[in-house]
């Protein structure tokens, strides 16, 4: 495809698929979590926030190691996998998605939480005086106002998953076409001294990261101006 050999093109395709699915899943999971963290008055709120942020601080190999056990036959992953006759979620694309969700979670939750917190109580109070139910107020007032934060979270989550290496190395098994993503493919190329391919993929990732960060900054400015 696109004139590139399979061992270059397939990891790229796999990485984009993994990042897209993980980011979408993350938005679904992180948004209610961020909403709760922004608005809850529970006494254990900050402890919960700290637990959510743990993957940011833990070495990926630590996270990957515990994931290996959790996804395997001795953990919940094995239980889920047995539903379709498999023994483990490790070495599967699903396993990678779970790993990416866990490791990118803090990068998605933080911006969304901050955005919700910045909305404040006032617009929601006004909405309720105009007879909007809390659910309606969330969807029609809070979410649109917080959308720059959601965009930031989505972009960060996507970029972080594209760059994820340690966790994928631990639970992936490097299966071509299934778990051999760009980061582990580059690692392989370096190990076997195929510098041309390594440079190609790595250079592509650098360019991609640059474009992503630039786009994020410009889009955020535009959104904030439009929403203000």
């Amino acid at each position, binding site marked *: 495809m696109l004139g590139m050999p399979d061992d270059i093109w397939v990891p790229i395709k796999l990485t984009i698929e993994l990042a897209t699915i993980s980011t979408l899943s993350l938005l679904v999971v992180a948004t209610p979590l961020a909403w709760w963290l922004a608005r809850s008055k529970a006494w254990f709120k900050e402890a919960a926030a700290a637990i959510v942020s743990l993957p940011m601080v833990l070495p990926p190999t630590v996270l990957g190691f515990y994931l*290996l056990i959790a996804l395997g*036959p001795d953990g919940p992953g094995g239980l889920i996998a047995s539903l379709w006759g498999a*023994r483990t979620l*490790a070495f599967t694309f699903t396993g990678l998605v779970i790993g990416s969700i866990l490791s990118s979670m803090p990068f998605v939750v933080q911006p969304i939480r901050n955005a919700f917190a910045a909305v404040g109580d006032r617009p929601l109070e006004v909405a309720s005086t105009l007879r909007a139910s809390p659910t309606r107020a969330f969807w029609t007032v809070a979410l649109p106002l917080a959308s720059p934060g959601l965009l930031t979270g989505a972009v960060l989550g996507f970029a972080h998953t594209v760059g994820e290496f340690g966790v994928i*190395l631990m639970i992936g*098994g*490097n299966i071509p076409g299934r778990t051999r993503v760009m980061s582990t493919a580059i690692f392989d190329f*370096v*190990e*076997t001294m195929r510098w041309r391919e390594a440079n190609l993929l790595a250079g592509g990732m650098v360019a991609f990261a640059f474009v992503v960060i630039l786009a994020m900054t410009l889009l955020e400015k535009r959104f904030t101006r439009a929403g203000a």
Partner: protein
Amino acid sequence: MKLTALAAALVGFLTSLAAPVHADVTHVAVAANFTEPAKEIAALFKQKTGHEAVLIFGASGAFYTQITHSAPFEVFLSADAERPKMAVDNGYAVPDTLFTYAIGKLVLWSRVIDVTNGEAALKAGNFQKLSIANPVAAPYGTAAVETMKALGVYDALKPKIVQGNSIAQAFQFVDTRNAELGFVALSQLHGVTEGTRWEVPMKLHAPIFQDAVLLKTGANSEASKAFLAFLKGPEARAIIAKFGYVLELS
């Protein structure tokens, strides 16, 4: 008064840090499969000579790349013969210091199914995942592939193969039972009683010659040269044999 006491304490502390004049440190890059024997050898080495060998474990492929980019290793214990030879050919290692310190033994190990008759188990294929070390980076992985091809099962088993980036990771996949079975190094099973194993007959794959070499960074290091000499000696060889390596091809 206080200042004098402080100064005395400082001098005392600094003096205590001074190592004996003859004792030195050497940094040894050790292939993952040789982890346990290397630790024992290093401990004995320190006891006998006073020199300290700092061991760094990892995949031979990664080590070679690092060595070509000025990694601070002085001695290289590879899992293969190819990389030490490349190091000498490309000027990173001292010629004439290269020798085979061990010949590796490949083992099929499982904690889930019975692999006592490994050939039959492989041919039956009653498993979902088989773990090997990445064949492009680790010689035990290459040997695993050679073995499967020699037995005529490689094509059938290829879709079930998962790769660890080093033999240590290949072991981990089997140990956590994520893979039902896998090809590991015999030395990794030292002291392990769980599961069943099949020692792969050495005629099924090219011998895993594990070579050691003195790197240019360690050319003037007494501790480095002493370590390599110790590795060739009878005490180290006894440890190496104990862990299931072969010392000479019969």
